[in-house]
């Protein structure tokens, strides 16, 4: 009797653990199945995406858009297509892990997974803002550069770079605001930087450019009175 009680005391924890394991095991199995399936899926997507981006000459397009230069400046030395493939692959892996963890049906984990999925749209819109904004900043900067050069302005490149810089600052602030990363600090920092750049430009061209402005006006007046261009290009 005492022996039986002793055995019961020894075996009971094992039974409880085993029962708990029996309840938990299907969830674990589901998680592992989801993880394995997800990894396989991610590898298939990686292979297909690599082929698709090669067929679309994505690397050449990235060179033209300036994304390659941006990556090199950020010390990223892989090809743009490979970078995109890796980002998508790891995104799918993380996505799979989150879904797998939710299969465990553990409350704390479920909360974490829910927060991840709630944050995901903000990450996607921030990435979109960065990509579209970077392309737009490059386009507008180049428009300004070519227009100023064709009108003979000496400081065309400086002005074009100033336009690009202002737009990049704006885009970064917008992306950080989307990600809700210290939003008050970001807004304040953006205001200070943006306002500072504008004031600096105003001072540079206002005070520092007085001589240059005088030369431009005198040159323009001289061109009007002599050396007028009558040529008809068309």
């Amino acid at each position, binding site marked *: 009797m005492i022996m039986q009680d002793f055995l019961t005391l020894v075996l009971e924890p094992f039974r409880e653990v085993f029962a708990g394991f029996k309840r938990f095991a299907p969830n674990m199995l589901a998680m592992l199945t989801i993880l394995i399936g997800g990894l396989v899926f991610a590898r298939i997507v990686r292979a297909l995406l690599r082929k698709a981006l090669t067929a679309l000459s994505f690397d050449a397009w990235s060179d033209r858009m300036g994304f390659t230069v941006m990556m090199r400046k950020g010390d990223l030395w892989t090809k743009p297509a490979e970078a995109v493939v890796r980002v998508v692959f790891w995104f799918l892996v993380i996505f799979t892990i989150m879904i797998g963890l939710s299969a465990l049906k553990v409350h704390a984990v479920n909360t974490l997974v829910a927060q991840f999925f709630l944050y995901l749209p903000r990450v996607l819109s921030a990435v979109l803002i960065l990509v579209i904004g970077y392309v737009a900043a490059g386009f507008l900067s180049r428009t300004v550069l070519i227009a100023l050069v064709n009108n003979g302005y000496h400081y065309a490149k400086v002005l074009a770079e100033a336009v690009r810089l202002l737009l990049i600052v704006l885009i970064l602030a917008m992306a950080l605001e989307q990600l809700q990363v210290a939003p008050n600090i970001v807004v304040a920092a953006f205001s200070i930087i943006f306002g500072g750049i504008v004031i600096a430009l105003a001072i540079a061209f206002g005070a520092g450019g007085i001589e240059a402005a005088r030369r431009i006006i005198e040159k323009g007046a001289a061109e009007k009175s002599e*050396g007028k*261009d009558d040529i008809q290009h068309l």
Partner: protein
Amino acid sequence: MTKIVERQEIRTILDRVGSADIVVGIPSFNNARTIGHVVRAVQAGLAKYFPGHKAVLVNSDGGSRDGTMDVVRSTRIEDQAAILVHHRIDPVPVIATPYEGIPGKGSAFRAVFEISDALNAKACAVVDSDLRSITPEWVELLLKPVLREEADFVAPLYHRHKFDGTITNSIVYPLTRALYGRRVRQPIGGDFGFSGKLARFYLAKDVWGTDVARFGIDIWMTTTAVANGFTVSQSFLGAKIHDTKDPGADLSAMLYQVVNATFGLMETYPEVWKKAQGSEPVRTYGFQYAVGLEHVNVNVERMLGIFREGLRNLREIWIAVLGQGDFGEVEALGNTGDEAFHFPRGLWSRIIYDYALAYHQRRLPAEHLIKSLTPLYLGRTASFVLEMRDADQSGAEEEIERLCEEFEKNKEYLLNNWK
């Protein structure tokens, strides 16, 4: 897109007229000051040279607010004897109407093509509404080769100052001559004659919602006629004097319009221009004579200043388009003084082909690409002006001929790289 011939008021006039041998079109937009002279010249030309032909005059207007269409409707030849016409002249029916579609000369021409098609015209001509130098003889020279069935398309041939028309002289003429193998000297002249058959061909093309309708119609008409096997000729019209375009008009915008249209047509007809080798002259009508021309001031210093600014600020774009080799040659030019500045013909032809290739490969947005050509164009123009300052018209024309030969010689470079 609505057809102009479907409008009730136009339909009424067309039904009354029935058919016509000749249609002359004049596109306009706020040209009340100048269009009267053009209309009288056309009326006189029709009366003198085509008295037995039924003609209609079409003014295709872009929404003028200065009474342009009223001027057209009310203009008559007052003194027939002065223009040496002694037979009875029936008034030429006039259709003055706003055109349909995107604002631009192309849409205006489309209206002329539609009316020509509706009237089953044998021959058509279009002339600009601000011409000061148009004479009745222009009408004969643009229409007679078509009516005699010797030509489907008649381009103008003007006598211009050696420094005028530099976009034509340094880009459009050498390029289209090398591409399509026909020596149409002024492919974007703007005053053309063409057959009714060619007008119907133009009308059938689906271009009226594109840049052709806005500003590319001249080069489009010439290239379409050449590339599709129509008989092309040109007529000497003398001097072309018209209202000076707004001096503030942006050169790079003009360059973009013309070069974009020319490069765009290369995308449409690659199988035609790839096959063409060398070039042949086109039949030229008209008695050629020397014309006194006003002196043209050219600010070479400003042109070279913009070229050097381009070298300083557009370096990355030019390297991407031209490659290191040709850019190196351009860079060397930047160190040359004004008086010794010389932009080689071979380099210029390769630059234009490089730009055509970059356009084809979409390396940059088209507007950025072509506008970045402006400083290079000004450098080449400045070089031409410096070299030809003491030359006469024939000397300048010989230099342009040498440039065209360079374009033809370097065409292989374009063919080898066009994929």
